[in-house]
């Protein structure tokens, strides 16, 4: 029941975006707005996922308890982002897609981030976790390179105002550094 509530919360942004789309509030170029919307919520989801552990260590386990729901929702937003790109920007043309991946590094980088998250989504069931044992944790460290790739994707897209990209950079850097520091402390 509680999990269901968490799922509901995670899908709220998607609902809002759909309503805006359905009621014509997205203006003449909804494709662009939806690309932006799904991308931004994916980034926010990523922040929450990475925040789960540090918050749990400080006595606030709420996010940690729902990290599977959070992670899967994040993957849904990233996947929608990718599907939209295929539908609106390359029109499902494989030749165009190949060209985009080859010539535009930010597309390749974003796509790689999705690829890095794919095995995490696929192994999110209890069975997969039991089956993988120790390796499950190792596999799920893929979220760190995915974070770096996602940030690179955002930074590469900036046209003239770097503010937002820098803000995400600072947040991600802080969240990743926290982990590096913990590893160092544990090694001691």
């Amino acid at each position: 029941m509680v999990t269901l509530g968490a799922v509901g919360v995670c899908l709220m942004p998607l609902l809002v975006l759909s309503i805006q789309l359905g009621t014509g509030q997205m203006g003449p170029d909804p494709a662009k707005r939806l690309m932006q919307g799904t991308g931004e919520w994916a980034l926010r989801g990523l922040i929450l996922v990475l925040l789960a552990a540090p918050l749990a260590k400080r006595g606030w386990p709420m996010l940690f308890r729902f990290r599977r729901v959070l992670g899967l929702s994040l993957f849904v937003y990233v996947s929608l982002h990718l599907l939209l790109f295929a539908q609106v920007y390359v029109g499902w043309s494989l030749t165009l897609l190949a060209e985009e991946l080859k010539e535009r590094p930010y597309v390749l980088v974003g796509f790689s981030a999705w690829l890095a998250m794919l095995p995490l989504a696929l192994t999110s069931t209890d069975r997969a976790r039991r089956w993988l044992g120790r390796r499950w944790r190792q596999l799920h460290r893929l979220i760190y390179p995915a974070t770096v790739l996602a940030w690179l994707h955002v930074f590469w897209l900036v046209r003239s105002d770097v503010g937002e990209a820098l803000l995400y950079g600072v947040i991600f850097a802080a969240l990743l550094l926290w982990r590096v520091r913990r590893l160092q402390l544990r090694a001691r």
Partner: protein
Amino acid sequence: MKRRTYIDPTIASSDVTPESVFLNRRDLIKASTGGAAAALGLSTARSGLASAPAELSFKSDTEGALLEELTPYDDVTSYNNFYEFGTDKSDPVQHAHAMTTDPWTIKIGGLVNQPGELHLEDILSGFDLEERIYRFRCVEAWSMVVPWVGFPLAELLQRFDPKPEGRFVEFKTLYRRAEMRGTRSFTSIIDWPYREGLRMDEAMHPLTLMTVGLYGKTLPNQNGAPLRLIVPWKYGFKSIKSIVEINVTAKQPKTSWQTLQSSEYGFYANVNPEVDHPRWSQRFERRLPSSIFNPNRVPTLPFNGYEEQVASLYAGMDLRKFY
């Protein structure tokens, strides 16, 4: 304050402002009062135009009207790139009302025999306005079809008599920090004021339009009120908005986007499906309004479909090099 008015000896009595246009001036003044009201937060959200645009009198474009379906007025005036007011497409319609457009003075100088100033009223009354329905192609791969109202830039330049050594024309947008929130963003990397430029033959080309209106009315602030350039065969960023200064120069002027990222934005910026922006393809465009299930992707045409009229300007030039 005494205002210097530019009096042009070449204006014939037949050119004297028709009453309808004169009355429109009144509307314009009224409209800008509306703008003040908007600035006080009395405007409405989506249709929150800076100042209620006033009707213009002009010669209709009956040929262009047959070309393609027009992009609706609401879309043309709510989906804009005007970074002085923010980088989001909806920032200009929300924030451009803060810009004062009356009084408005344009300084014309550089290599001209008769440098001087023009006031908006001189422009509205001193030139025959005509409608031009043009395709408008943004470098970001979306496009619109817009009925602009204006007059050829050539007519304006000729009044100031460019010197023969003047080979380029430079334009500058208003830069007023207090009224333009985008210019106050400390993470913005644009060096204000926004600048653009054309080669003299491009500037003199009959398609190049000094634009004062769209859809038969004066330009809303978010579309570059009160006076902007429209160069239909070039990417939209060449069509500089809210112009306050025009200089004729001997050397190719530095333009804003080129200065910022010369590998991505060239001086010419002619619409060219064969030369991609490094970060996206230019072969297709989304003709707005577009939707998710019907993205309205259409192939981009060389020179935005004006190849026949303008290709000769670039004869013998390598357009991959001079993008």
